[in-house]
Each structure stands twice: as structure tokens, then as C-alpha cells.
């Protein structure tokens, strides 16, 4: 039967209901601040929101949004190619291009559409896409739609990438390499300097998804490629407005003039309504703040290091280096679920990640830090994790 394939998911959802575990799709009843809310009736510290700079609650962004709604209305009611290109969209594209120091930018209604649409369009039949094995779902969806030959390289393994480029021979020139700046689940940073070198050596093109690194890495906050000093090797940068910029939407910027033609070939751009002007306006304001206030980035990293060091000192299985995404790995399913619940009961909301969304067979309690977290909030999060050890849900150094 058509719907039989959903039985496994139905059983999982039933299990979650029986356990009263609200880890997936928890309803936020109230937002108190960028880092605090009432979720499923409980007041919690928000430590799983990707709100890296805390700008979702910035009064300047809210005011920009309000003013745009008054001026333009609540929506565009059409796609960018039809009636949905407003002056706000054009201005945001120009500001993004200027921010990245390139000539061309496209805005999308969501980050998913930006990544999926760009990957689906840039390479086609006869071309090759080499993507990191731990790529985001939007990348996998896009490359599947592209019609290109799709080959994975081992996660951030540049020796493996080099092997695969070598195997392609002349076809390397028709290849798009795809990497992310910061990988969303474990918070690790791609080795972009080495990837850029390989890209140049083999004459391929490089697309970097800076969804989790825009506003987080680089002297000007442009992302991992800026931090690695290899922006000139990046052909296409994609990203999202829904994390450090606190809104929703996505973008692709490029030094290649052809991006203006690519724009008219991306289905996820052509056949969907454009972003509502209020969101575009808040994104523009947020981008300005990101650019003008590097102290937000410093505060974010202070918090990230504090959480990382605190959890590591407890003996928990965190990633190899500090990052605004700090994931604690669990091999035991029951322990991971119980741990999520205990953190929530103790007023800390984090993300529970289960395979296959996690990059291995492990379960993750994924924390994302914000510049808006107070030191006291970070310490309360660490305390809540200490409570997991006290409850026997995790053994130090063997999570």
C-alpha cells in the first residue's frame, strides 16, 4: 500500500507520545527574549535555536520589519519573476553582494530553497558534483534533482576528495565541489584552505554553504572561507537568513556574472512566492548590525568557549574544538531521550538529534550558543548537564 512506508515513522511518533517526549516539534508558547521562552508550558533557556547573534529579538530589526509591513503590506503574493520583486529584495541583494565583495547575489524565500535550488541548477547532466558525506539535507535534495553524477567524499577528508578528483580525470573541470563552512550537527569547521587548493589544482568549481558560519567566522563575519583566507577560490557562497540574521530566507552570491542567468533557471526561485517585505527589511537591518558590531561575534565565541570548556570539563563527549554548535554524543538511545527530557524539565531546551539526521549511529544533544546568552545562562546549561551525570544518564568520558 502507498502509505505503508510510513509505518515505521508512525510507530516512532507513537512512542514519543507515550513517553510524552516533546523533543520534536515542541510548541513555543511565548518568546521572552532571544535566549528565553516558554516551550510546551515550561519556561526554558533556549539553547537550540541557531540564533547565533540574538538578532531575532533585536528592537532595530523588529522596527524595520514593522515599518516594511506598513509600507508594503504583509506579502508579495507572487514570485520574483512575476509580481514579487520589490525594491526591498533588490536592495538586500545589492547589500549582500557588497558585503561579500562580489558582483552578484540572489535572495531566496528560505535557506533550504537557496541551497537546494542552487545545487540543483549549477550542475546538470554530464557534470559531476562532489559533496561532503555529512552535507545538509537541502544539499542532498538539490544534487538529486540536478541530474549530475553525484559522488560523496568522506567528511572533511581532503585526501579522499583529492583521490576522487584524480579519478575524474578531465571531468574534474566539469565538477562542482560542495562543502559547508560549519557543519550543523557537530559544529566542526571544513578544511576550506585545503579544499580551495584542490579546487584550483583540478580546475573544479567550489560552492560553500555558510549557513552556520555567516556572522560567526571571519574578521568581517563573512564565514569560514573568510576565516581560512580563501574567499577568492569560492565560486558560489550560499547561506541563510534564519540563523545569525534572525529572519528567514537564503542567498547565493558569486563573483561570476553568469549568476544573473542562473537566477532564471532555478525552479526554487522562479516558482515560489518571494519573501515577505517585512522579513527582507529585518534581514537588511540585521546584516547591517552583523557588519557594524563585531563585538556580537566576540560575545558569541566567549559563550561558545564557556559552554564547550564547561561540558568538556564534565567529561562529556563533545567535538574536537570549540564552536557555537556544541553537540554531546550518546551511543545509547534511551539515555539520550531521558537526558533530553531531564534538561527540559530543568529549564534548558536543546535539540535532540537521532540517526539518520546525526552523522553516525550516535544520538546528539545539540546546543547552539548565542551572543545574547548571559554568562549565568551558560552556567545554568552546564549545571543542567552536570545533573545528567548525577542522574546516571551519562558517564563522564564515555557518553
Amino acid at each position, binding site marked *: 500500500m502507498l502509505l505503508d512506508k510510513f509505518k515505521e515513522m508512525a510507530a516512532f511518533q507513537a512512542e514519543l507520545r507515550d513517553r510524552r517526549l516533546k523533543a520534536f516539534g515542541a510548541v513555543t508558547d511565548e518568546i521572552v527574549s532571544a535566549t528565553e521562552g516558554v516551550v510546551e508550558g515550561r519556561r526554558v533557556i533556549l539553547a537550540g535555536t541557531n540564533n547565533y547573534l540574538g538578532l531575532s529579538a533585536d528592537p532595530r530589526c523588529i522596527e524595520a520589519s514593522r515599518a516594511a509591513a506598513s509600507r508594503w503590506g504583509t506579502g508579495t503574493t507572487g514570485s520574483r519573476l512575476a509580481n514579487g520583486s520589490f525594491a526591498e529584495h533588490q536592495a538586500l541583494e545589492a547589500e549582500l553582494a557588497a558585503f561579500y565583495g562580489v558582483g552578484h547575489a540572489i535572495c531566496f524565500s528560505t535557506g533550504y530553497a537557496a541551497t537546494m535550488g542552487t545545487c540543483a541548477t549549477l550542475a546538470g547532466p554530464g557534470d559531476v558534483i562532489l559533496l561532503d*558525506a555529512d552535507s545538509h539535507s537541502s544539499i542532498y535534495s538539490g*544534487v*538529486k534533482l540536478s541530474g549530475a*553524477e*553525484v*559522488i*560523496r567524499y*568522506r567528511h572533511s577528508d581532503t585526501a579522499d576528495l583529492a*583521490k*576522487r578528483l584524480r*579519478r*575524474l580525470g578531465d571531468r574534474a573541470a566539469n565538477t562542482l565541489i560542495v562543502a559547508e563552512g560549519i557543519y550543523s550537527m557537530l559544529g566542526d569547521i571544513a578544511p576550506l584552505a585545503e579544499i580551495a587548493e584542490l579546487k584550483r589544482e583540478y580546475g573544479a568549481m567550489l560552492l560553500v554553504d555558510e549557513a552556520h558560519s555567516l556572522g560567526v567566522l571571519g574578521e568581517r563575519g563573512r564565514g569560514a572561507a573568510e576565516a581560512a583566507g580563501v574567499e577568492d577560490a569560492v565560486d558560489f557562497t550560499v547561506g541563510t537568513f534564519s540563523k545569525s540574521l534572525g529572519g528567514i530566507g537564503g542567498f547565493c552570491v558569486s563573483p561570476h556574472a553568469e549568476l544573473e542567468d542562473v537566477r532564471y533557471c532555478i525552479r526554487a526561485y522562479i516558482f515560489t512566492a518571494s519573501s515577505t517585505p517585512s522579513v527582507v527589511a529585518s534581514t537588511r537591518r540585521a546584516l547591517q548590525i552583523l557588519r557594524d558590531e563585531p563585538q556580537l561575534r566576540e560575545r558569541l565565541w566567549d559563550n561558545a568557549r564557556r559552554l564547550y570548556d564547561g561540558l568538556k570539563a564534565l567529561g562529556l563527549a563533545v567535538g574536537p574544538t570549540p564552536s557555537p554548535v556544541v553537540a554531546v554524543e550518546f551511543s545509547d538511545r534511551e539515555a539520550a531521550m531521558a537526558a533530553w527530557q531531564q534538561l527540559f524539565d530543568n529549564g534548558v531546551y536543546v535539540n535532540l538529534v537521532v*540517526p*539518520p539526521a546525526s552523522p*553516525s*549511529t550516535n544520538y546528539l544533544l545539540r546546543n547552539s550558543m548565542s551572543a545574547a546568552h548571559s554568562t549565568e545562562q551558560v552556567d545554568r546549561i552546564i549545571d543542567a548537564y552536570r545533573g545528567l551525570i548525577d542522574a546516571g544518564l551519562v558517564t563522564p568520558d564515555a557518553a
Partner: protein
Amino acid sequence: MADYQSCLAFLCELLQKYNRKRVMINENTGLVADLGLSSLEVMEVIEQIEDHYDISIPLNILPDVNTVADLAQKIRDLNP
């Protein structure tokens, strides 16, 4: 150049370490249906094959691969 039979022999040996169900592995064995490989395990197997034959196996071929024979055939095709 790897012929079909040698690909098959390599695969049967490689898949033994994933043979939790202790089934008889031959060319008709289903990778998911019989061996119960998870998506992660399928990718692990693919990587080991790639290393062994020094080839890259495109993801595009995977929807057509159900059995050990299907996989052996694809390896042979990719390793002329």
C-alpha cells in the same frame, strides 16, 4: 579490470562482517531486504569498495542496487 566473478567474491567476503542475521550470502542476497543494512552501513560498504578498486561510485546508481549481484555488476561497469 575486475570481472564480475571477482567482484562478487570480494563483495561476499566484505559483507560477512555485516551479516548479523547469519544468512547465506550469494549474488541473490538483498543488501537491505536480507542483510538488513542501514543507510549508513550501505555507505560504509560503498566506501570500502571504492578504496579497494580505486573507483568512485556515484550515488545515482544506488536506487538500482538491491542485491549483491546488482552491486557486483555496477562495480564491474565502473572499473573497465
